Protein backbone atom coordinates (compact mmCIF):
# COMPACT_ATOMS: atom_id res chain seq x y z
CA UNK A 1 0.00 0.00 0.00
CA UNK A 2 2.59 2.42 1.17
CA UNK A 3 4.96 1.77 -1.68
CA UNK A 4 2.10 1.96 -4.10
CA UNK A 5 1.08 5.31 -2.70
CA UNK A 6 4.60 6.56 -3.04
CA UNK A 7 4.63 5.50 -6.63
CA UNK A 8 1.33 7.02 -7.53
CA UNK A 9 1.54 10.25 -5.65
CA UNK A 10 3.84 12.04 -8.10
CA UNK A 11 1.54 11.01 -10.86
CA UNK A 12 -1.46 12.56 -9.11
CA UNK A 13 0.48 15.68 -8.40
CA UNK A 14 1.43 15.91 -12.01
CA UNK A 15 -2.12 15.36 -13.15
CA UNK A 16 -3.66 17.87 -10.82
CA UNK A 17 -0.89 20.32 -11.55
CA UNK A 18 -1.41 20.13 -15.29
CA UNK A 19 -5.14 20.63 -14.90
CA UNK A 20 -4.45 23.54 -12.61
CA UNK A 21 -2.00 24.92 -15.13
CA UNK A 22 -4.49 24.80 -17.93
CA UNK A 23 -7.14 26.55 -15.89
CA UNK A 24 -4.63 29.06 -14.69
CA UNK A 25 -3.48 29.71 -18.23
CA UNK A 26 -7.05 30.16 -19.37
CA UNK A 27 -7.67 32.56 -16.54
CA UNK A 28 -4.53 34.49 -17.33
CA UNK A 29 -4.85 34.83 -21.05
CA UNK A 30 -8.37 34.17 -22.18
CA UNK A 31 -10.71 35.65 -19.65
CA UNK A 32 -11.37 39.32 -19.44
CA UNK A 33 -10.57 41.59 -16.61
CA UNK A 34 -13.26 43.38 -14.71
CA UNK A 35 -13.74 47.07 -15.40
CA UNK A 36 -11.64 48.29 -12.50
CA UNK A 37 -8.92 45.85 -13.47
CA UNK A 38 -8.85 47.14 -17.04
CA UNK A 39 -8.40 50.69 -15.85
CA UNK A 40 -5.71 49.59 -13.42
CA UNK A 41 -3.87 47.56 -16.07
CA UNK A 42 -3.93 50.44 -18.53
CA UNK A 43 -2.70 52.98 -16.01
CA UNK A 44 -0.09 50.60 -14.65
CA UNK A 45 1.20 49.94 -18.15
CA UNK A 46 1.53 53.61 -19.00
CA UNK A 47 3.07 54.63 -15.69
CA UNK A 48 5.54 51.75 -15.69
CA UNK A 49 6.68 52.31 -19.25
CA UNK A 50 7.10 56.04 -18.68
CA UNK A 51 8.98 55.46 -15.44
CA UNK A 52 11.30 52.96 -17.09
CA UNK A 53 11.84 55.31 -20.01
CA UNK A 54 12.86 58.11 -17.66
CA UNK A 55 15.14 55.82 -15.66
CA UNK A 56 16.67 54.36 -18.82
CA UNK A 57 17.29 57.74 -20.38
CA UNK A 58 18.76 59.22 -17.22
CA UNK A 59 21.07 56.28 -16.54
CA UNK A 60 22.06 56.04 -20.21
CA UNK A 61 22.91 59.71 -20.28
CA UNK A 62 24.82 59.64 -17.01
CA UNK A 63 26.75 56.52 -17.90
CA UNK A 64 27.17 57.76 -21.47
CA UNK A 65 25.99 54.45 -22.80
CA UNK A 66 23.26 54.17 -25.39
CA UNK A 67 23.25 50.42 -24.97
CA UNK A 68 22.52 50.77 -21.26
CA UNK A 69 19.48 52.89 -22.06
CA UNK A 70 18.15 50.36 -24.52
CA UNK A 71 18.79 47.45 -22.14
CA UNK A 72 17.08 49.09 -19.18
CA UNK A 73 14.12 50.07 -21.32
CA UNK A 74 13.86 46.58 -22.81
CA UNK A 75 13.88 45.14 -19.31
CA UNK A 76 11.15 47.56 -18.35
CA UNK A 77 9.04 46.57 -21.31
CA UNK A 78 9.40 42.89 -20.48
CA UNK A 79 8.48 43.50 -16.85
CA UNK A 80 5.49 45.60 -17.82
CA UNK A 81 4.39 42.92 -20.25
CA UNK A 82 4.56 40.28 -17.56
CA UNK A 83 2.71 42.45 -15.09
CA UNK A 84 -0.07 43.94 -17.17
CA UNK A 85 -0.82 41.54 -20.01
CA UNK A 86 -1.74 38.30 -18.24
CA UNK A 87 -5.02 38.48 -16.40
CA UNK A 88 -3.63 38.26 -12.88
CA UNK A 89 -6.18 37.67 -10.11
CA UNK A 90 -5.01 41.06 -8.94
CA UNK A 91 -7.05 42.65 -11.76
CA UNK A 92 -10.25 40.85 -10.88
CA UNK A 93 -11.03 42.21 -7.47
CA UNK A 94 -14.28 43.80 -8.54
CA UNK A 95 -16.18 41.15 -10.48
CA UNK A 96 -19.41 42.05 -12.21
CA UNK A 97 -22.38 40.59 -10.39
CA UNK A 98 -24.97 39.12 -12.75
CA UNK A 99 -28.50 38.49 -11.64
CA UNK A 100 -29.41 34.85 -11.27
CA UNK A 101 -32.11 33.81 -13.72
CA UNK A 102 -34.50 32.80 -10.95
CA UNK A 103 -33.79 36.10 -9.27
CA UNK A 104 -34.52 37.90 -12.51
CA UNK A 105 -37.88 36.21 -12.70
CA UNK A 106 -38.89 37.25 -9.23
CA UNK A 107 -38.00 40.83 -10.02
CA UNK A 108 -39.18 41.52 -13.59
CA UNK A 109 -37.29 44.02 -15.67
CA UNK A 110 -38.45 47.59 -15.41
CA UNK A 111 -40.35 47.84 -18.68
CA UNK A 112 -40.45 51.58 -19.43
CA UNK A 113 -36.83 52.32 -18.67
CA UNK A 114 -35.31 50.18 -21.42
CA UNK A 115 -35.41 51.39 -25.01
CA UNK A 116 -35.15 47.85 -26.25
CA UNK A 117 -38.62 46.93 -25.11
CA UNK A 118 -40.07 49.95 -26.78
CA UNK A 119 -38.36 49.15 -30.06
CA UNK A 120 -39.56 45.60 -29.74
CA UNK A 121 -43.23 46.40 -29.78
CA UNK A 122 -43.81 46.53 -33.54
CA UNK A 123 -42.11 43.13 -33.88
CA UNK A 124 -44.41 41.63 -31.31
CA UNK A 125 -47.54 42.72 -33.24
Amino acid at each position, binding site marked *: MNSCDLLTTPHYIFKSLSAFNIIFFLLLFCLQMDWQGQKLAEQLMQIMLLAFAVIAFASGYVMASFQMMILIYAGGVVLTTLLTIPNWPFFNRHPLV*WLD*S*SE*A*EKHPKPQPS*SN*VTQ*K*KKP*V*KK
Partner: protein
Amino acid sequence: MYMSARDKNKKSNNGRASSYSSWQPHIIMALNIVALIRNINVLTLKRVKSKGELRFGVEVKLGLGSSNHRLLRSALKRRREEATTMGWIGETVDSIKSLQIRQVLTQAVSLGMIVTSALIIWKALMCITGSESPVVVVLSGSMEPGFKRGDILFLHMSKDPIRAGEIVVFNVDGREIPIVHRVIKVHEREDTGEVDVLTKGDNNYGDDRLLYAHGQLWLQRHHIMGRAVGFLPYVGWVTIIMTEKPIIKYILIGALGLLVITSKD
Protein backbone atom coordinates in the same frame (compact mmCIF):
# COMPACT_ATOMS: atom_id res chain seq x y z
CA MET B 1 45.35 53.84 -33.42
CA TYR B 2 42.74 54.73 -35.98
CA MET B 3 40.77 52.54 -38.28
CA SER B 4 41.23 53.47 -41.86
CA ALA B 5 38.38 53.00 -44.26
CA ARG B 6 40.71 50.99 -46.39
CA ASP B 7 41.61 48.66 -43.54
CA LYS B 8 37.96 48.06 -42.86
CA ASN B 9 37.54 46.84 -46.39
CA LYS B 10 36.50 43.20 -46.42
CA LYS B 11 36.62 40.59 -49.11
CA SER B 12 35.96 41.87 -52.59
CA ASN B 13 33.48 44.63 -52.08
CA ASN B 14 35.29 46.87 -54.45
CA GLY B 15 32.73 48.73 -56.47
CA ARG B 16 29.82 47.54 -54.45
CA ALA B 17 26.93 49.92 -54.58
CA SER B 18 25.13 50.97 -51.48
CA SER B 19 21.74 50.95 -53.02
CA TYR B 20 18.40 51.51 -51.45
CA SER B 21 14.78 50.82 -52.16
CA SER B 22 11.95 53.24 -51.92
CA TRP B 23 10.20 53.20 -48.62
CA GLN B 24 6.94 54.52 -49.93
CA PRO B 25 4.70 51.49 -50.50
CA HIS B 26 5.89 49.93 -47.32
CA ILE B 27 5.44 52.95 -45.14
CA ILE B 28 1.87 53.08 -46.35
CA MET B 29 1.46 49.42 -45.63
CA ALA B 30 2.99 49.73 -42.19
CA LEU B 31 0.69 52.63 -41.43
CA ASN B 32 -2.18 50.54 -42.68
CA ILE B 33 -1.25 47.70 -40.41
CA VAL B 34 -0.98 49.98 -37.41
CA ALA B 35 -4.22 51.64 -38.31
CA LEU B 36 -5.95 48.33 -38.93
CA ILE B 37 -4.99 47.16 -35.49
CA ARG B 38 -6.16 50.41 -34.02
CA ASN B 39 -9.29 50.15 -36.10
CA ILE B 40 -10.03 46.76 -34.66
CA ASN B 41 -9.58 48.18 -31.21
CA VAL B 42 -11.87 51.08 -31.89
CA LEU B 43 -14.45 48.74 -33.32
CA THR B 44 -14.23 46.34 -30.45
CA LEU B 45 -14.53 49.21 -28.04
CA LYS B 46 -17.54 50.47 -29.90
CA ARG B 47 -19.03 47.06 -29.77
CA VAL B 48 -18.89 47.01 -26.02
CA LYS B 49 -21.22 49.96 -26.01
CA SER B 50 -23.63 48.48 -28.51
CA LYS B 51 -23.22 45.10 -26.93
CA GLY B 52 -25.61 46.09 -24.17
CA GLU B 53 -28.57 44.98 -26.17
CA LEU B 54 -26.84 41.86 -27.45
CA ARG B 55 -25.89 40.73 -24.03
CA PHE B 56 -29.39 41.48 -22.91
CA GLY B 57 -30.82 39.15 -25.53
CA VAL B 58 -28.46 36.37 -24.64
CA GLU B 59 -29.30 36.73 -21.03
CA VAL B 60 -33.03 36.48 -21.64
CA LYS B 61 -32.57 33.42 -23.77
CA LEU B 62 -30.55 31.75 -21.11
CA GLY B 63 -33.17 32.65 -18.56
CA LEU B 64 -35.82 31.05 -20.69
CA GLY B 65 -33.81 27.94 -21.23
CA SER B 66 -33.48 27.30 -17.54
CA SER B 67 -37.05 28.23 -16.80
CA ASN B 68 -38.31 25.75 -19.38
CA HIS B 69 -37.30 23.05 -17.01
CA ARG B 70 -39.79 24.25 -14.53
CA LEU B 71 -42.95 22.19 -14.81
CA LEU B 72 -45.02 24.54 -12.73
CA ARG B 73 -45.18 27.13 -15.49
CA SER B 74 -48.59 27.82 -17.01
CA ALA B 75 -49.04 27.36 -20.78
CA LEU B 76 -50.16 30.91 -21.26
CA LYS B 77 -47.12 32.31 -19.62
CA ARG B 78 -44.97 29.97 -21.66
CA ARG B 79 -46.57 31.07 -24.91
CA ARG B 80 -46.03 34.69 -24.01
CA GLU B 81 -42.43 33.99 -23.23
CA GLU B 82 -41.93 32.13 -26.49
CA ALA B 83 -43.30 35.10 -28.33
CA THR B 84 -40.86 37.20 -26.42
CA THR B 85 -38.08 34.87 -27.43
CA MET B 86 -39.00 35.14 -31.09
CA GLY B 87 -39.06 38.87 -30.69
CA TRP B 88 -35.71 38.78 -29.03
CA ILE B 89 -34.20 36.61 -31.69
CA GLY B 90 -35.50 38.83 -34.45
CA GLU B 91 -34.30 41.85 -32.58
CA THR B 92 -30.89 40.34 -32.10
CA VAL B 93 -30.57 39.33 -35.76
CA ASP B 94 -31.67 42.80 -36.81
CA SER B 95 -29.25 44.52 -34.53
CA ILE B 96 -26.41 42.27 -35.67
CA LYS B 97 -27.26 42.96 -39.30
CA SER B 98 -27.35 46.69 -38.81
CA LEU B 99 -24.20 46.49 -36.77
CA GLN B 100 -22.43 44.57 -39.48
CA ILE B 101 -23.36 47.01 -42.20
CA ARG B 102 -22.33 49.90 -40.02
CA GLN B 103 -19.09 48.14 -39.13
CA VAL B 104 -18.20 47.36 -42.70
CA LEU B 105 -18.92 50.94 -43.71
CA THR B 106 -16.92 52.35 -40.80
CA GLN B 107 -14.05 50.05 -41.58
CA ALA B 108 -14.07 50.97 -45.24
CA VAL B 109 -14.18 54.67 -44.47
CA SER B 110 -11.43 54.52 -41.91
CA LEU B 111 -9.29 52.38 -44.19
CA GLY B 112 -9.68 54.96 -46.92
CA MET B 113 -8.78 57.68 -44.44
CA ILE B 114 -5.65 55.81 -43.44
CA VAL B 115 -4.48 55.26 -47.00
CA THR B 116 -5.12 58.84 -47.99
CA SER B 117 -3.54 60.27 -44.85
CA ALA B 118 -0.45 58.13 -45.39
CA LEU B 119 -0.24 59.46 -48.94
CA ILE B 120 -0.70 63.01 -47.69
CA ILE B 121 2.09 62.56 -45.15
CA TRP B 122 4.35 61.11 -47.80
CA LYS B 123 3.68 63.89 -50.29
CA ALA B 124 4.11 66.52 -47.58
CA LEU B 125 7.48 65.00 -46.70
CA MET B 126 8.42 65.13 -50.36
CA CYS B 127 7.53 68.82 -50.47
CA ILE B 128 9.38 69.68 -47.27
CA THR B 129 12.56 67.80 -48.03
CA GLY B 130 12.54 68.52 -51.74
CA SER B 131 13.62 64.98 -52.40
CA GLU B 132 11.76 62.47 -54.49
CA SER B 133 12.06 59.80 -51.85
CA PRO B 134 12.67 61.41 -48.46
CA VAL B 135 13.13 58.13 -46.63
CA VAL B 136 15.30 55.38 -48.04
CA VAL B 137 16.51 52.00 -46.86
CA VAL B 138 20.15 51.00 -47.19
CA LEU B 139 20.45 47.66 -48.95
CA SER B 140 24.16 46.92 -49.03
CA GLY B 141 27.21 47.32 -46.91
CA SER B 142 29.46 49.66 -48.85
CA MET B 143 29.06 52.39 -46.22
CA GLU B 144 29.75 50.12 -43.25
CA PRO B 145 30.22 50.61 -40.40
CA GLY B 146 28.28 53.84 -40.79
CA PHE B 147 25.26 52.49 -42.54
CA LYS B 148 24.39 48.84 -42.41
CA ARG B 149 21.88 46.93 -44.43
CA GLY B 150 18.45 47.69 -43.06
CA ASP B 151 19.15 51.18 -41.78
CA ILE B 152 16.94 54.06 -42.73
CA LEU B 153 18.24 57.35 -44.07
CA PHE B 154 16.35 60.61 -44.18
CA LEU B 155 17.20 62.63 -47.24
CA HIS B 156 17.12 66.33 -47.80
CA MET B 157 17.57 68.14 -51.07
CA SER B 158 18.41 71.78 -50.66
CA LYS B 159 19.94 74.40 -52.90
CA ASP B 160 23.12 74.43 -50.82
CA PRO B 161 26.22 73.55 -52.80
CA ILE B 162 27.56 70.04 -52.50
CA ARG B 163 30.74 69.75 -50.48
CA ALA B 164 33.23 66.99 -49.80
CA GLY B 165 32.30 64.66 -46.97
CA GLU B 166 28.58 64.81 -47.52
CA ILE B 167 26.71 61.58 -48.05
CA VAL B 168 24.67 61.87 -51.21
CA VAL B 169 22.19 59.73 -53.04
CA PHE B 170 22.80 59.69 -56.75
CA ASN B 171 21.42 58.11 -59.85
CA VAL B 172 23.78 56.90 -62.52
CA ASP B 173 22.55 56.78 -66.11
CA GLY B 174 21.65 53.26 -67.10
CA ARG B 175 21.46 52.05 -63.52
CA GLU B 176 18.13 51.22 -61.94
CA ILE B 177 18.92 51.55 -58.27
CA PRO B 178 20.25 54.80 -56.80
CA ILE B 179 23.41 54.69 -54.71
CA VAL B 180 24.26 56.23 -51.33
CA HIS B 181 27.94 57.17 -51.07
CA ARG B 182 30.22 59.85 -49.71
CA VAL B 183 31.61 62.74 -51.73
CA ILE B 184 35.40 62.78 -51.76
CA LYS B 185 36.24 65.31 -54.48
CA VAL B 186 34.47 68.48 -55.55
CA HIS B 187 35.31 70.89 -58.35
CA GLU B 188 32.99 73.84 -58.58
CA ARG B 189 33.03 76.06 -61.68
CA GLU B 190 33.76 79.72 -61.23
CA ASP B 191 31.36 80.96 -63.93
CA THR B 192 28.39 78.59 -63.99
CA GLY B 193 28.52 77.20 -60.48
CA GLU B 194 28.26 73.68 -61.84
CA VAL B 195 29.95 70.97 -59.82
CA ASP B 196 31.96 67.91 -60.67
CA VAL B 197 31.71 65.40 -57.86
CA LEU B 198 33.47 62.13 -57.18
CA THR B 199 32.06 59.69 -54.65
CA LYS B 200 33.27 56.64 -52.79
CA GLY B 201 31.75 54.15 -50.39
CA ASP B 202 33.42 54.24 -46.98
CA ASN B 203 33.86 50.49 -47.05
CA ASN B 204 34.95 50.24 -50.68
CA TYR B 205 38.55 50.08 -51.75
CA GLY B 206 38.40 52.46 -54.65
CA ASP B 207 36.29 55.37 -55.79
CA ASP B 208 33.04 55.04 -57.69
CA ARG B 209 34.28 55.56 -61.25
CA LEU B 210 33.76 51.85 -61.82
CA LEU B 211 30.11 52.23 -60.91
CA TYR B 212 29.49 55.24 -63.10
CA ALA B 213 28.36 54.95 -66.67
CA HIS B 214 31.10 53.94 -69.08
CA GLY B 215 33.54 56.77 -69.52
CA GLN B 216 31.92 58.97 -66.91
CA LEU B 217 34.45 60.57 -64.62
CA TRP B 218 32.33 62.93 -62.54
CA LEU B 219 28.83 63.23 -61.21
CA GLN B 220 26.95 66.40 -62.00
CA ARG B 221 24.32 68.17 -60.01
CA HIS B 222 21.45 66.52 -61.87
CA HIS B 223 22.62 63.05 -60.89
CA ILE B 224 22.25 63.85 -57.22
CA MET B 225 18.87 63.21 -55.65
CA GLY B 226 19.53 64.29 -52.09
CA ARG B 227 21.89 64.19 -49.17
CA ALA B 228 21.49 62.12 -46.05
CA VAL B 229 20.76 64.16 -42.93
CA GLY B 230 19.28 61.68 -40.46
CA PHE B 231 19.70 58.09 -39.56
CA LEU B 232 17.63 55.39 -37.89
CA PRO B 233 18.99 51.88 -37.40
CA TYR B 234 17.32 48.53 -38.15
CA VAL B 235 13.83 49.84 -38.99
CA GLY B 236 14.38 49.25 -42.69
CA TRP B 237 14.52 45.51 -42.16
CA VAL B 238 10.74 45.48 -42.32
CA THR B 239 10.94 46.70 -45.89
CA ILE B 240 13.77 44.41 -46.86
CA ILE B 241 12.01 41.34 -45.51
CA MET B 242 8.79 42.31 -47.22
CA THR B 243 10.43 42.90 -50.59
CA GLU B 244 12.62 39.84 -50.50
CA LYS B 245 10.11 37.43 -49.00
CA PRO B 246 6.75 38.46 -50.42
CA ILE B 247 5.16 35.43 -48.75
CA ILE B 248 5.60 37.08 -45.37
CA LYS B 249 3.89 40.18 -46.70
CA TYR B 250 0.93 38.17 -47.95
CA ILE B 251 0.75 36.17 -44.73
CA LEU B 252 0.74 39.39 -42.75
CA ILE B 253 -1.91 40.99 -44.91
CA GLY B 254 -3.96 37.80 -44.83
CA ALA B 255 -3.70 37.49 -41.08
CA LEU B 256 -4.71 41.09 -40.61
CA GLY B 257 -7.59 40.67 -43.01
CA LEU B 258 -8.74 37.60 -41.11
CA LEU B 259 -8.44 39.53 -37.88
CA VAL B 260 -10.63 42.26 -39.28
CA ILE B 261 -13.22 39.83 -40.59
CA THR B 262 -13.32 37.61 -37.53
CA SER B 263 -13.11 40.37 -34.95
CA LYS B 264 -16.84 40.19 -34.33
CA ASP B 265 -16.45 38.37 -31.07
